[in-house]
């Protein structure tokens, strides 16, 4: 079966099913329905999956997560060294993708928390909400309005504008 999600990051709320306290002799329809579902749907699907897995287990393939070497940034390139510019741009694009995925993960955590807590999410999920706000604010300030044709040089210019604004504000 495929790997389950990380239980530490997405904790399950405590189960609230009460202890079985049968007071009638009549059969429990919920129990009948669960057993029916199990035998008609769950068991065939699980056996199908197990047969396919047993066929597949003879040729097991693995894939890896590619790690890229760090190259000099755009600020460390000599002027006119276009190959250095290209490598820095590619590295910036990879980092941009990684940052987008980070934001998605933090957003997913906040959504899971809201789903878990129900109507009392605003007071119970303050950590997730605060983390999400911080991450999105940083992402917006770094990659915010660069648009579809963003590249490393434009992002660097945006950073320069930010630094100039901060300096003007502090001065």
């Amino acid at each position, binding site marked *: 079966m495929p790997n389950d999600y990380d239980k530490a990051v997405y904790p399950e709320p405590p189960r609230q099913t009460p202890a079985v306290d049968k007071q009638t002799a009549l059969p429990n329809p919920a129990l009948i329905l669960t057993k029916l579902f199990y035998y008609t749907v769950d068991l065939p699907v699980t056996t199908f999956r197990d047969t396919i897995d047993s066929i*597949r287990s003879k040729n097991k*393939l693995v894939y890896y997560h590619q790690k890229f070497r760090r190259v000099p940034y755009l600020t460390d390139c000599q002027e006119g060294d276009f*190959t250095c510019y290209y490598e820095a741009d590619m590295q910036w694009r990879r980092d941009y993708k990684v940052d987008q995925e980070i934001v998605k993960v933090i957003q997913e955590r906040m959504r899971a928390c809201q789903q878990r807590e129900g109507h009392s999410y605003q007071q119970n999920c303050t950590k997730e909400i605060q983390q999400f706000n911080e991450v999105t604010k940083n992402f917006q300030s770094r990659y915010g309005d660069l648009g579809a044709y963003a590249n490393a040089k434009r992002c660097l210019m945006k950073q320069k504008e930010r630094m100039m604004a901060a300096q003007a504000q502090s001065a």
Partner: protein
Amino acid sequence: MVGMSLLRSAAAFAARLGPLKAGNNAANILARTIPRTNKVATRWGHGKKMFVVKPSNFYDRRFLHLLRYYILLTGIPVAVLVTAVNIFIGEAELADIPEGYEPEYWEYYKHPITRWIVRNIYDSPVKDYEKVMAAIQIEKEKGDMRLTQLEVRRQMRHHGDGPWFHVPTPDKALIDNSPKSSPDN
């Protein structure tokens, strides 16, 4: 006789005026017989074979037949291949890179067909990267050469001693100096 022919023509005229009206069949008007609806054929055994006149659907059926044929001609083998790959080979699982092992470039993809395409058809991403860097390098060198050419031209024109701005003049030895020996001719 004349009266009968008059009636017959009148009935035909009435039928022609309103051919779609129910009781206006020419024979019906003339004889005004009531159609007998209580004695109809209740058992449809060998019904009379009718030649139903409708437009031809030969071309439509041929088109759909050919469409299905040509789509399924390659569609079915592809579907069978993809199903067989998914059942018998299956997708790859994510694993950590073992120590000291450099994975091949196709081992970074999940689906076996993607891996096969990347391995056999595409170039490795390192090669693509190097191709782009080589193109950039060639263009940079071209640009640098053009800039140096312009600079050399500027310098030669300025100093006047560069080979590009030499104007060919006739040979010094060809000058006939004899008129200069008698200046006041």
